């Protein structure tokens, strides 16, 4: 399966901002955060459409999120995920002795997720990561 090497950025989006105010367990938060914005050219290379499940992997882990076409291109090979529990599975925890993990500019691979892999809900993701409900 096609795989591309990209740089992963993370940050706030206005939907993430309003989603968190609707509640971390709300559908709105889930829909605004469990996503990855990909340049249209990269989506074409992967041979997938917007809304497909996308697997994002870094040396720290991998997570499945929905692929979203980036509105603000062109920025090929740069993908963007909003702050939230999903990006943190793949974020770089290295702080270089500053207290600050490296949430931006993380080398990553993106590929279409296998048919058996789906985007986990917040509760499922927490259960998988922490073993608590």
């Amino acid at each position, binding site marked *: 399966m096609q795989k591309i090497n990209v740089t992963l950025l993370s940050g*706030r989006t*206005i939907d993430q901002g309003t989603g968190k105010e609707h509640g971390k*367990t709300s559908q709105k938060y889930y829909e605004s955060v469990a996503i990855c914005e990909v340049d249209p050219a990269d989506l074409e290379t992967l041979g997938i459409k917007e809304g497909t499940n996308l697997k994002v992997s870094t040396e720290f882990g991998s997570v499945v999120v929905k692929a979203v076409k980036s509105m603000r291109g062109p920025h090929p090979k740069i993908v963007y995920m909003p702050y939230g529990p999903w990006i943190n599975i793949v974020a770089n*925890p290295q*702080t270089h002795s500053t*207290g600050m993990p490296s949430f*931006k500019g993380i080398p990553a691979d993106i590929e279409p997720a296998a048919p058996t892999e789906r985007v986990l809900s917040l509760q499922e993701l927490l259960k998988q990561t922490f073993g608590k409900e």
Partner: protein
Amino acid sequence: MPTIKNVTCPVCGTFCDDIELKIKNNKVIDVKNACAMGEAKFLSYSDPHHRNLKPLIRRNGELIETSWTEAIKKSAQILAEASYPLLYGWSSTSCEAISVGIELAEEIGGVIDNTSSVCHGPSILSIQDQGISTCTLGQIRHRADLIVYWGSDPYSAHPRHLERYTAFTEGRFQPSEWKRYVSRLRGVIGKKKLERASQLALMEEISVPPITGSKIPPTLETEKERKLIVIDARRTHSAEFADYFIQVEPNRDYELLQALRMLVKNEELEVDEVAGVPVDVLEKIVDVMVGCKFGVLFFGVGLTMSSGKLRNIDAALALTRDLNFRTKFVIMPMRGHFNVTGANMVSIWQTGYPFSVDFSQGYPTYNPGETSTVDILSRDESDAALVIASDPVANFPKNAAQNLVKNPLIVIDPEKSATALMADVVLPSTFVGIEAEGIAYRMDGVPLPLKQVVKPPRSLLSDEEILRRILREVRKLKKKPRKA
């Protein structure tokens, strides 16, 4: 139906103070002037689906309702018995609550850290090294004629920053960018129409050059209206409002900042491009910067979270200092939460240090990298934690969050956050700024009051009251009666 005016908005660091709320039957029913985030908070805070109304305690792996007395006792017991407890969060509560929190940290010999350690912590470290040339947002609103946002997307994170303080506000001495933006927008719409018409007529795409971003408009240096430049690793929403957008390659901000410093000092760059930006573009940007009367550089976590971290801020502060030899320039971090600045302020008053303060030796010590939350958790050193007004489980890297969750965890939060779902004791509090009063600091260090606009549910206590009760209980356990 009462309308309450001049309400401050307890969401982002812009901390708007002009919100108007209509209240009916002790409920907010209408919000004026707020952005999408503020409106969402005021209208949906009381949604029972995402808040707890009773204290919870974990028994046999499940969170079940309990009494306040038991929940407070259990929390005090966890904290008093821990040898290296962590008290984390604080940026979305009032200064009064933070003040009690620091007292509690001292009492239990723990580490107290606020969210700036994963936000603008590197900026603070750098400001301590370099010093900062800054001012209040009011000065910027009335006087600044050049606005630069670097690694910050105010449209997404501080939605009213542009309209209240920078590009789109009419200052007393400085007209806004508004008219130029509207005419540019007309151009963009015209261009889209032209593209669509050509697609329909010729059934093929023609390329029309972009309206913004390709080159600096020649009039930019001479125009009286405020100018806006956005510098970021990707084209953000805010870039659409800018007169000029520079796309820097990820993790190469430091080089670009240093290149700009060289150009400000009239030195020559012997390369064609820096961090993906052609040098002739940089030269023109520096001309605009040097040519302005009052410039301001707002920087976001795009600088503090990418490679270089505090060194990026060193370069940005130094660039501002260099520019001040030739014109007037100030710099300001775009602080995220409404009271993260207040968390630093209170921490400085009471301990001498702004964040990551360790009381384990009986006196405050400060060494980010060692005493900062993510590092403590990554090394798995803490053995219990109290999290207040923040959601580290949703916002920390996986291994740090796993080590936080595996030890006893107390959460004080009005919302059912991801951290609250993982907690061992949940102490639900009132929403400060809606159901409780307090003081918070805007991003430029101006203190403003948080108003109480509705009565809280009877079963809930404020953050400050919960902390006072825990502190009292901890002192009882330690048998050191003091005034709580």
